[in-house]
């Protein structure tokens, strides 16, 4: 999962408290903790979702490009936007092609399989980490970095 997220970037979705979804793209993503993903975002990219996040922190995201089908996972958690500090500065250095305006930090709480078929919608974060790694390796042979 880490390999796909960091290689492809992600499509990120937020919603207003009334349930209007907004989708943006982050072309630079880093797994910053085992249960946290941070997105370096340009002004327009964060602008699409920042209004919704300010009222409702829920975020859902999936891997962009071929990852939409090869990395069949949906990640959910609570997001916060940061515009200053060491966290932002460190990530900006790693993202030279991005005109960084902000970093979206998402603390993950839910993980789902989105592979079509019997396992579609299966919740995976209920597994122990080792079991989840084994589950992933048993199904995918082209995981980046593995």
């Amino acid at each position, binding site marked *: 999962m880490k390999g796909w997220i960091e290689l492809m*970037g992600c*499509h990120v*979705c*937020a*919603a*207003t*408290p*009334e*349930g*209007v*979804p*907004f*989708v*943006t*793209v982050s*072309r630079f993503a880093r797994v910053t903790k085992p249960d946290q993903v941070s997105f370096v975002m*340009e002004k*327009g*990219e964060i*602008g*699409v979702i920042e209004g*919704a996040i300010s009222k*409702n922190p*829920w*975020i*859902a*995201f*999936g891997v*962009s*490009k*071929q*990852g*939409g*089908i*090869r990395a*069949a996972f*949906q990640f*959910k958690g609570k997001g916060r936007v940061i515009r200053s500090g060491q966290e932002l500065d460190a990530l900006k250095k790693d993202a030279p092609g991005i*005109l960084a305006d902000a970093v979206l930090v998402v603390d993950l709480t839910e993980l789902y399989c*989105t*592979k*079509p*078929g*019997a396992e*579609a*919608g299966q919740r995976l974060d209920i597994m122990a980490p080792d079991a989840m790694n084994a589950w992933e390796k048993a*199904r*995918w*042979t082209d995981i980046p970095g593995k």
Partner: protein
Amino acid sequence: MVTFTDEMKNALRVPGKGGSLIYMATSSLEGKPNIAAMRFVATHGNDKILVCDMFLLKTKMNLKENPECSIAICHPLDSGRDWVFKGKAIDIEYGFSPEFDWYGAKAKEILDMWGDWATLEPPKEVPPDIVFPKPAQRGVVVLHVEEIYSIEKGKTGERIQ
């Protein structure tokens, strides 16, 4: 009112016919978002996107209570197809009245054309380790598009239509 361009119509087809993989985003009424990739996609007229209801779970639950929906091009990205389509969607399932109308799209017309999508456009381009073992279509989601935005790098968030 939006009008799809020819480029958009070409992009909003199954990948095996030169189209795109898409992300479909919905939300519960309480604002919990959901985003899932879809392969079976098509357009209907100049302002509607069709998506096959096959293995939909949260997406379906959300649409049952909240029609707000966004569809974004997932793959290929950064190749001139960087759009998000926003509007209101419904899942036209088998059993709907044939006369049911969603912003001008009739249930009978939609299901007659797209109700057996896996036969119409079989997933020949999908690798065998990903393709579903057996099609299980229950309907067709129809998104009535009201706004189109860019997700092109440097232009994300700009309204196109």
